[in-house]
């Protein structure tokens, strides 16, 4: 099986074609603006007719996204976006279905639907806006907030341990996991295109900044002074190099990853781990996804991308198989199936 999608013939679309006439109402400076822009940049590259694109969302700041896209859109209820999106995709597998979630929507109230969409591997694209806070309800801690975070509902600091999206994705047997940041629109657009082309549930985690309630939550990665040392841009088949002039690298030492510097202690490029996003075994993907400050950079890019049968494919296959040997072909056949008798 190859990772390809049918590309229908259509007149080329532009960024403008995907922008709706609705006033965008996120807070000034919100990371969501750049995600929206990256999306309207990415979609024309996919050559999918606009009428075949559907955006589904739950509740939260992120969930307003469908109103700003000039495609089909359905803003549903809190946490249930993946379930609605699943119904949409099964009803019409030709549609390109995008599901927009925040961290609370996806991993608190909607945790069940999130993991089960991934487990079924339904061919939809989930974009997870992770700002580690509840914004729309005005600043409570979320399931991804770090322990100790002071919020309105944790005035003495959060006492809970956070979820890491990648761990849930891999635990749920997800086939596609990528991570990007709202400060890098080019990378975001690239990854959205990549996610759309993946056949199966694609999960893109966007490290997004909430300028009002959790400003600089990702600054350790996104701040200009940290970019070189704390961003590891991974590409399938490429060595895991980062830092100024790509002098630093990730080496596998026993069962652990470590940061090494080229030229120091005899380290050469041959010692650096080469990223394999396509390997079935998720062990290294998980290790990569878990890296982060203060001792490691954060991995950005497509970390895992494997092909497995999707739920929609399995349903179509099953139907074809059953239909071959079916005894009934209409409800009239069904009504008279089994034992019947005539009263004369």
């Amino acid at each position, binding site marked *: 099986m190859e990772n390809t999608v049918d590309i229908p013939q259509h007149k080329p679309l532009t960024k403008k074609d995907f922008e709706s006439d609705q006033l965008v109402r996120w807070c000034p400076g919100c990371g969501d603006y750049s995600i929206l822009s990256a999306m309207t940049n990415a979609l024309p590259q996919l050559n999918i007719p606009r009428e075949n694109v559907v955006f589904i969302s739950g509740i939260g700041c992120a969930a307003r996204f469908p109103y700003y896209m000039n495609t089909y859109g359905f803003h549903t*209820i809190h946490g249930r976006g993946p379930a609605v999106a699943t119904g949409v995709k099964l*009803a019409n597998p030709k549609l390109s279905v995008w599901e927009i979630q925040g961290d609370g929507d996806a991993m608190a109230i909607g945790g069940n639907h999130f993991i089960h969409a991934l487990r079924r591997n339904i061919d939809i694209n989930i974009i997870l806006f992770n700002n580690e806070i509840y914004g729309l309800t005005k600043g409570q801690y979320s399931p991804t907030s770090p322990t100790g975070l002071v919020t309105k509902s944790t005035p003495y600091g959060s006492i809970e341990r956070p979820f890491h999206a990648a761990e849930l994705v891999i635990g749920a047997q997800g086939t596609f996991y990528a991570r990007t940041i709202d400060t890098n629109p080019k990378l975001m657009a690239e990854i959205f295109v990549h996610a759309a082309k993946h056949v199966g549930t694609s999960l893109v985690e966007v490290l997004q900044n909430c300028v009002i309630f959790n400003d600089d939550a990702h600054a350790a990665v996104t701040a200009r002074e940290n970019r070189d040392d704390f961003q590891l841009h991974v590409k399938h088949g490429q060595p895991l190099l980062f830092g100024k002039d790509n002098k630093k690298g990730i080496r596998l030492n026993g069962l652990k990853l470590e940061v090494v510097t080229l030229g120091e202690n005899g380290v050469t490029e041959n010692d650096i781990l080469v990223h394999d996003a396509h390997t079935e075994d998720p062990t290294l993907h998980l290790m990569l996804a878990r890296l982060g400050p203060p001792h490691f950079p954060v991995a950005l890019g497509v970390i895992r991308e494997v092909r497995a049968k999707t739920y929609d494919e399995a349903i179509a296959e099953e139907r074809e198989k059953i239909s071959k040997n079916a005894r009934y072909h209409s409800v009239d056949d069904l009504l008279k199936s089994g034992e019947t008798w005539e009263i004369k």
Partner: protein
Amino acid sequence: MDDTLVNGTKTTKELEKVVIRFAGDSGDGMQLTGSQFSFTSALWGNDLATFPDFPAEIRAPQGTVEGVSGFQVQIGKIDIYTPGDQADVLVAMNPAALKSNLQFARKGGNIIIDMDAFVERNIEKAGFKTNPLEDGTLNDYNVVEAPISSLTKAALEGLQLDNKSIMRSKNMFALGMMYWLFDRSLKETEKYIEDKFRKTPALAEGNKRALNAGYHYAETIEALPARYKVPPAAIEKGVYRHISGNTATAWGLIAAAEKLGKQLFLGSYPITPASDILHELSRHKNLGVITMQAEDEIAAVCSAIGASYAGQVGVTTSSGPGIALKGEAIGLAVMAEVPLVVVDVQRGGPSTGLPTKTEQADINIAVYGRNSESPAVVIAASTPSNCFEFAYQAVKLAVEHMTPVILLTDGYLANGSEPWKYPKLADLPPIKVNEPQKTNGTYYPYARDPETLARAWALPGTTGLEHRIGGLEKQDITGNVSYDPQNHEKMVRTRAEKVSRVANYIPELEVIGKGDGKLLVVGWGGTYGGLLTSVKELQLANKKIDFVHFNYINPLPKNTRQIFEKYDKILVCELNMGQFASLLRSRFPGLNILSYNKIQGQPFLVTELKEVFINHLKD
């Protein structure tokens, strides 16, 4: 059924109707025995109705009262609307079955017991202090003490079967006895056995031997002095089949989707007593059905909403606890104005309640059980077979009016079965899709049909109709998000008006009776058979009593007030604390609306209802 013991010779008596109840351990195969008896009787031409009564536990400890499974059937040469109040013949396979089912046996009737099971240990386990066969407990009954287990064992001797398989055939022995008693042929059941055990000839042979042994045993013993004949009923001509309520619901949904030329999407989560609809639909994926066993009740309804939004017939099926979980999503369908069918197979509650027992206490949650002003169409089936008609109607109303429709059935209808003169798809009413139209080149998602007020069903994938909908309040016509106070009031009132206009598209109520204006019995949903039988019997005795039965709960049929106003007394009978009566009182204040309620997880009995009605007629 009056028995006169005539020693020596066997006589045959003719009966108008008779009630038979099979009871045994839940592993004894009583449901199978009962349904085989019913099927054979239907082929013979009887009208009939059945009611299985099984425990919530799959296999409660053997020999305990908790583990007893029962199956009741009433057969007749007259029209039969209920499985009957009390059994003329009770088959009890062990002491526990006798203990829990004696209350359902008519005094003076026959009780057939497996004598071999009445050993001290079993008697004690069933909770009897002394042996009921000896202490006078059964003095009012004609007891047939049959050594069913040992005779089954003897009949199966020489077959390569283990003891467990042999003992599992004893239900066929009991069935054979019943076939002799009611002068039925063994042929159909033999055919069934051959088919079922095609791959294990020894089991087929064993079951057939047990069936025949039971038949000949009954013919021989003196304890059964007479056999009974229930002649065929005067049933409308046509081709019939057997159908249970849950199967009828499933097939009605398939029929509606096929009529529409669309696929049926079921999102469902297993729950008693609704799961059989999921099972049945899962068997028919070649007929354009997709079933998804969702991760929970909420995902079940949400995936159905997604499928409806994208152009399939979205359905979710559940029972009370699941309906409670789906409330928010049903509200989304109200706001987004997409078609959605929610089937609620009601059971006893609150909370987990009585999973396998019937109740009618979900009217309130169906009509009112969502936040804010959230109107939905609510309809109710009233017989096992008309679950087909109302499932079909639920899809029709949902699609034509772009609204969620909640279909109420119940455990009694779901598991009950009856003969059914089934329709052809071509004869079912057409279902019209409200196609989207553009105004001056623009599509407005909340533009409405002037008659129904339904918006159009504009499907993703259609060029030029791109639009956004959602749970936030919508601006009239454009469907854009709107927080405008006047618009909100207008939209709330429009959604309510849309649902109330459904009354223009449903049949009016029909009064059964002469319209004497004295006592009007009112029912809804699954109590139809019991209420109809009771009222008809009193009408035959020249009592001034009339009956109306509701299949449409919200909106109510248009002539409801007109009918109600004629009566001195309106008596609403329901298996709850009076939820429908409350609804009627709030809609029709000033009328004399009374309640008769029962909340025991069991249907009304005809004798019970007749007594209640006679008392009301006295005042």
